[in-house]
């Protein structure tokens, strides 16, 4: 540029250099200046916390609904007929104790969680439908069932995100696929839950939501132990 003073050009050049260097350093300078142990995992820990909170809420709702049902429909707690209950998710093998849960691989645990969430998507939706049709249920209960049904969806998405993040960070392998297609999992017993009574459905879901919450907590404390475990 004819009008550009060589001195000003130098200044501009210097400024540009400084700026670009700053930018490059800024990229590297994230939340953790010194890369303390586990610091880079903070976002993952936050994600986990959110998902766990979500699952806790889901379990709370299912617990409330179950108690309501028990109040109105089952006067006596210890009916012999109970034992014959068979949840449709019993085909999914889940760890039944602490040691078992800690022993299995992280990927497997994550997959179990996802399988459970997928398995409950349709039954809950149908449960909500049947609830809203019955007049004896209050609006409150009907809203709860809808909320429950929605939460299963949301929670599944959340868990997928967490898995994704973990895979990105290299914590788990990529073997945990998106088991999003329920048909693949439940081809054999897709119709089984339709024959379950509403109360049994609630009982099974209450338990399964507790499982999901607990597995998530275990997973979190295995992967990001320093953040609130």
């Amino acid at each position, binding site marked *: 540029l004819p009008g550009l003073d060589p001195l000003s050009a130098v200044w501009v050049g210097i400024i540009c250099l400084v700026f670009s260097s700053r930018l490059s350093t800024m990229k590297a300078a994230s939340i953790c200046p010194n890369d303390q142990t586990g610091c880079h995992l903070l976002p993952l820990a936050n994600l986990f916390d959110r998902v766990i909170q979500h699952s806790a809420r889901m379990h709370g709702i299912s617990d409330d609904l179950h108690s309501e049902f028990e109040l109105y429909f089952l006067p006596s*707690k210890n009916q012999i007929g109970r034992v014959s209950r068979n949840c449709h998710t019993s085909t999914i093998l889940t760890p*039944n104790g602490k040691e078992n849960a800690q022993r299995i691989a992280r990927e497997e645990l994550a997959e179990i969680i996802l399988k459970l969430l997928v398995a409950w998507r349709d039954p809950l939706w149908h449960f909500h439908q049947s609830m809203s049709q019955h007049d004896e249920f209050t609006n409150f209960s009907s809203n709860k069932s809808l909320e429950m049904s929605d939460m299963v969806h949301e929670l599944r998405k959340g868990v997928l995100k967490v898995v994704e993040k973990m895979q990105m960070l290299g914590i788990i392998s990529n073997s945990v696929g998106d088991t999003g297609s329920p048909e693949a999992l439940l081809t054999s017993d897709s119709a089984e839950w339709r024959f379950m009574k509403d109360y049994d459905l609630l009982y099974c879901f209450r338990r399964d939501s*507790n499982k999901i919450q607990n597995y998530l*907590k275990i997973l979190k404390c295995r992967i990001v132990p320093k953040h609130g*475990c």
Partner: protein
Amino acid sequence: MRKAEGGILLRLLLLFMLHATGTSYSPPGKPTLTRCRSPEKETFTCWWEPGSDGGLPTKYALYYRKENSDKVFECPDYRTAGENSCFFNKNDTSVWVNYNITVVATNALGRTFSDPVDIDVVYIVKPNPPENLALTVLWDQTWPYLHVSWESPQKADTRSGWITLIYELRIKLEDEDEWEEHPAGQQKTFNIFSLCSGGKYLVQVRCKPDHGFWSEWSSSQYVKVPEYFNREKSMWVLAVIFSAFALFIITWLIHMNCHNLKQCILPSVPGPKIKGFDEQLLKDGKSMDAFSSLVGANFPPTTTNYEDLLVEYLEVFVPEERELMLEETKELHNDSLKFENSTSDCDSGRGSCDSHTLLIDKSEEEKGQQPDQQSSEIKMDGKGQDEEDKYLTCSPENVDSHQLSSEKVKTWPSSFSPLPEYSPIPLQQPNSHETSKQPCLSDSLFAAGPLPSHFPHLGHNTKDEIGSSYWQFGISNKQLHLLHQQMEAHQQLQAHKNASVSNIGHLQLPSVRFTEYVEVQRVSDQNMVILHPVPSHPETSYPDWHQTEEYSKVKCVDNDNGLLLLQREGVEEGMDMCSYEELPESDPSKTTNTTFTSPCSQPAPSVQDERVVGGYVETSVFTLPTY
């Protein structure tokens, strides 16, 4: 086979023996499972309550079945958890599995089953109390606070996320009975403030899993708070002392001024008195005598001197010696005056309001017709030159439009502007007084602009002769303002109103004596226009009428600075308010329409019912034009 035979034989023998001794034995009573608890969600214990043993040694056994399996297992450990208990260790415990448990009592005579119980380990967790409770007193500047810390029970594994615990602590002073509880969430520390100086505190803590039972309270820990100066407390003490002192002073003051205050707050109420009524007579029992005094010459009142009711009057001062002849049309409907009777007391501030002090704007022609008549031209000049076109007609709307200009006569439209609560048709005065709550204000509209030249009311022959004077209208009504209009160039009529406009109503005479128009007698030395009423009907003369009263009723002031004194009460339908005016030569009958058109022909609604008042000017300030 043999064994069975042997067993049966043995039993029979036993029965025989027992029978021989004479005691009664029975199979055991039914045991009951009282509770099952798991301290860490990895093992659990069940306790039962035995029933009667039937007099024979009884053995208890616990059997369980797992969910969806028919295989029955017996309790693996009867001893670890004590008497009448069954302990399930880690290997035997499966979480999220439904256990169906039964207890069986067996004695020589039989066995009895308890009711089965379904449990799921997840929902029966009751942890051990928290451990290592530690109390420390720390200092926040000058104030101490208590720092409490603890640890989760050993067995509960919170580290791996298997169990999540929430905590709660409670604190109390040593000699108190009530505990103060504080939920602490998942944290393991807590701070307590507001401690009593030198007090000894007890602290306990407990925990609970997110779905389960509260643990027992931990053992108490003691702490002694050191002495410290509680500034807050001393501040309260000071405040109390100060307020007590202030209260004392106030009480003393009240006491000193007791008498005065009494008068102020509780003024003495005059006892009821009826004139001529002697209470003593009544007390004595002579009721007839007592009442007789009432029935007398004075009751019921037959005549009243209405004159006495007149309290206020309007004095009109004309600065220069002018005589304004005010004539009013004779055409007044008498019946319109009746409303005047309705309320004798205009003091109440209700509308007198039927007084219409409207200065009617005369048409230009009229002006031309009787130039001589315009002896006094009272000009209400609304505003500056631009305003000249707008004159206040007796309609309230126009009134507002005028602004005060320094050099011109300031009309004060606002004073006559209809009050907000007024009906928008000020001139329309229904017969009822109620509507005319506002005094005469609404009535007093005046037209700005030149008064009609033919303004006849003023008996002046030349307006020029009217010295500068100004009408000063004071209205005590809060909505009105005293406007002074001073026009150096203009002559002004000065009218003093001694009382509030609202009192003008007093001038309303009862029907017996309505004077419907006034006539200017003369203009006094002090530039006062002295008006006298001109009785419309000779037969109804009002000798008592104060001939010397100076008042007139101005209906409006028209553009030509003519003061229109209104008097018309009659309803002339379709007639503008301003359409009233008196031409000295006009006959009464003609009062109506002709002359009043122009300035007063505004949107002002026709007056249905003008109350004619016997002359008083509700004035507005206006100036006489100089001629």
